[in-house]
């Protein structure tokens, strides 16, 4: 019979990746004599090996076996935990990951690094004298030695008295033996003490069996495998030829009746004979199980099936809420059966309850998508470890707020930008130990990753206690690259923001670690595409902090509904600075079509939404319309709209999925009345407006210059 286990491969893979992560993080924290940590690393490796063996992933089994052996030596204290070994183990973890990824992707992986690491492992193992590489753990398979002729085996089985106390039952052993062929069983009760002296938990009987079977001695011994230390077992072959299994003349007790413990206590007469036998009986039950086997199906084992693990409490609260929703619904529908005005109060309260239910339900569902940010942070200890080794810097990584939850989609997309920022902190932020000591700081630099909630968004801070950003160097570089004019006066923040400009890198030489084409501008762009923003603070000599602000989720947005002509648009609330009625004296017309609105110290370009989307608006003149001042990327613009409507949460529907990407629109939503409203893409709109303007003008920079002229 065969049991198809391939359905468990995905969960094995998932578990293995988790195990590898655990191994990695534990290895990074491993200290001499830390038994629990080394044990947990060993267990992880052990589980991976076990699982891989079951599924026949030999590459993984073989490799992991080496790792396991090394860990075992550490665990038993036979081997000192050296930095070299830890590095080797970290490398091995990488190799195991490669191997397991190859299984997931159903591909062959590059073996060079793996073979090399395996070699290193073997060498490391051979250094310690007591290495026993027992590779024959792979499936102690039944020997397929086909003996054509049946043999009549003679077996004497004299168990020790305490045999049953380890849960073994001779009767069952004989049943198992009966699967090999017809047997006869003779019990020898001569050691049975008088009934008054019998200890019911002891076994006083020994047996003599004959087995007519093609099985080898090995097969027979295997049946007694678990009791061989607790009995005398003599197996011999007295008769070679196929002899009829002679039924002993003694009383034969059918096996159903032969409950062992009851028999042993009941047998007071010393010469009573117990026996059980008959092979056919047992094999019939075996066959019945074969038919229950499921069909083997071609299994697609892509690991990232997009599943998330959800805590039971979250699901429970969801079920709870759905229950309440159902109650509210039934209340409302009952109310609607014969509705009259007297019931209007109950209707209102019912609707209120419905609102509350829906809101809570929505929150609970969102919580399911939320994962602790440790999922994104986990990769950094290793990264910092490797990088600091490579760069010869001493760095400690501190993780804070790892339990802060973040939407899964956001999490997946924030990984790379964060990696870049951390690399940056190691590469450019933290100085070498000598430099640090020279400036009176401890040799060991500290990089801190912190995450916390702030309002409706999550803030991730990457800070280092390094040298800080060299303001002058940044400025000079920006001038050199033509990003700013050398006479421009900028405050600190404006200078630091320059590092996010395309093609900007202040590292004196391009190192292997950061500055490989992917610059901070890409980081910023990625974060912005998630609807977030990034800021940097820095103090010379003290270090820098990068602050990433991200929306908690990409699925729902707080929006301000506005009306332009007959259309309703949604402006993300987070982008809105203020809304106002334009005062004519503050409106300035600069060259071309561009209008500027004087908002205290700022001059804000006005974008007429109607013109941008080519629709009819009620108010064509700025003076009549309302201005919604929005900010993106430090740039403020005033959107000209006809009316402000409600503020509400809207569920974002992708336009790209349902239609196609539209410039200036980030998505759509369905309003309460069933109509579709577009969600404005503020950065996109600003770019559009700037491009439109630059068709008559040259560049926005010129507008700004003109503006300065107007201002002065």
């Amino acid at each position, binding site marked *: 019979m065969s049991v198809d286990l391939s359905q468990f491969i995905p969960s094995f893979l998932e578990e293995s990746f988790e195990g590898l992560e655990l191994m990695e993080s534990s290895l990074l924290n491993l200290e001499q004599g830390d038994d629990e940590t080394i044990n947990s690393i060993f267990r992880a490796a052990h589980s991976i090996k076990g699982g891989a063996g079951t599924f026949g992933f030999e590459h993984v089994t073989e490799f992991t076996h080496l790792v396991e052996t090394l860990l075992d030596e550490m665990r038993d204290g036979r081997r000192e935990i050296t930095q070299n070994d830890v590095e080797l183990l970290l490398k091995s973890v990488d190799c195991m990951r490669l191997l397991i990824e190859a299984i997931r992707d159903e591909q062959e992986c590059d073996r060079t690094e793996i073979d090399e690491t395996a070699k290193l492992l073997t060498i490391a193992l051979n250094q310690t004298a007591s290495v026993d590489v027992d590779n024959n753990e792979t499936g102690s398979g039944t020997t397929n030695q086909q003996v054509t002729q049946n043999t009549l085996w003679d077996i004497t089985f004299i168990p020790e008295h305490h045999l049953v106390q380890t849960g073994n039952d001779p009767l*069952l052993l004989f049943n198992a033996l009966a699967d090999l062929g017809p047997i006869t069983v003779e019990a020898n009760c001569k050691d049975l003490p008088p009934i008054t002296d019998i200890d019911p*938990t002891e076994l006083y009987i020994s047996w003599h069996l004959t087995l007519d079977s093609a099985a080898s001695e090995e097969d027979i011994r295997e049946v007694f495998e678990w009791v061989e230390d607790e009995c005398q077992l003599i197996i011999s072959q007295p008769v070679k030829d196929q002899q009829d299994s002679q039924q002993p003349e003694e009383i034969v007790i059918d096996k159903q009746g032969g409950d062992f413990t009851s028999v042993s206590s009941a047998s007071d007469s010393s010469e009573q004979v117990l026996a059980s036998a008959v092979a056919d009986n047992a094999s019939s039950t075996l066959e019945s199980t074969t038919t229950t086997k499921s069909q083997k199906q071609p299994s697609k084992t892509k690991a990232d099936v997009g599943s998330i693990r959800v805590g039971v409490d979250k699901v429970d609260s969801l079920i709870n809420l759905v229950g309440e929703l159902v109650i509210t619904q039934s209340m409302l529908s009952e109310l609607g059966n014969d509705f009259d005005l007297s019931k209007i109060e109950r209707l209102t309260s019912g609707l209120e309850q419905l609102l509350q239910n829906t809101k809570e339900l929505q929150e609970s569902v969102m919580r399911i998508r939320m994962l602790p940010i440790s999922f994104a942070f986990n990769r950094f200890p290793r990264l910092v470890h490797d990088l600091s080794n490579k760069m010869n810097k001493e760095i400690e990584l501190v993780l804070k707020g790892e339990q802060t939850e973040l939407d899964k989609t956001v999490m997946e997309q924030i990984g790379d930008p964060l990696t870049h920022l951390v690399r940056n902190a190691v590469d450019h932020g933290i100085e070498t130990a000598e430099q640090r000591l020279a400036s009176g700081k401890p040799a060991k630099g500290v990089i801190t990753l912190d995450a916390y909630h702030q309002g409706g968004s999550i803030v991730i801070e990457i800070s280092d206690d390094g040298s800080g950003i060299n303001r002058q160097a940044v400025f000079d570089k920006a001038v050199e690259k033509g990003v700013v004019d050398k006479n421009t006066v900028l405050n600190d923040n404006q200078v630091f923001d320059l590092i996010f400009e395309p093609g900007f890198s202040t590292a004196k030489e391009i190192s292997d670690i950061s500055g490989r084409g992917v610059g901070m501008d890409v980081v910023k762009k990625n974060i912005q595409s998630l609807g977030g923003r990034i800021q940097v603070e820095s103090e010379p000599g003290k270090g820098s902090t990068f602050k990433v602000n991200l929306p908690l989720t990409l699925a729902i947005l707080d929006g301000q509904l506005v009306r332009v002509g007959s259309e309703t648009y949604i402006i993300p609330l987070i982008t809105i600075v203020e809304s106002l009625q334009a005062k004519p004296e503050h409106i300035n017309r600069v060259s071309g079509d561009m209008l500027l609105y004087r908002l205290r110290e700022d001059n804000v370009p006005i974008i007429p939404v109607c013109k941008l989307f080519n629709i009819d608006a009620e108010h064509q003149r700025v003076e009549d319309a309302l201005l919604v001042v929005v900010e993106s990327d430090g740039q403020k613009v005033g959107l000209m709209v006809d009316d402000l409507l409600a503020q509400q949460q809207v569920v974002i529907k992708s336009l790209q999925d349902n239609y196609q990407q539209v410039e200036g629109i980030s998505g759509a939503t369905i309003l309460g009345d069933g109509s579709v409203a577009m969600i404005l893409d503020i950065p996109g709109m600003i770019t559009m407006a700037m491009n439109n303007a630059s068709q008559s003008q040259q560049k926005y920079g010129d507008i700004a210059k003109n503006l300065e002229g107007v201002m002065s």
Partner: protein
Amino acid sequence: MTKILVVDDSNSIRDMVSFTLKSAGYETVEAKDGAEGLSTARSNSFDLVISDVNMPNMDGITLCGELRKLDDFKFTPILMLTTESSGDMKLKGKAAGATGWLVKPFNPEKLLATIKRVIR
């Protein structure tokens, strides 16, 4: 119905053992480590316990010793599921009262065949 307690810290191994046993018509209860296994065992009776050796919280050997102290588990077969097929580990298991051992990599057919030596 024959009821089996499966103790293993690895989800997938536990699932597979359980699945294999269920497909053969046994009833299974799972526990993720020795401590959970012991508390489950205290409030239930089982016809067989299959346990991993290396587990957090409480390892399989300790679990086995603890189970043997319970009246209900004095004669219950306890099988250790392990890759450590060295004699050392077997002796330790035996000393703690284990009935036998199953060697990983775990093979479903073998599992079903061998547990018949200890349960009916």
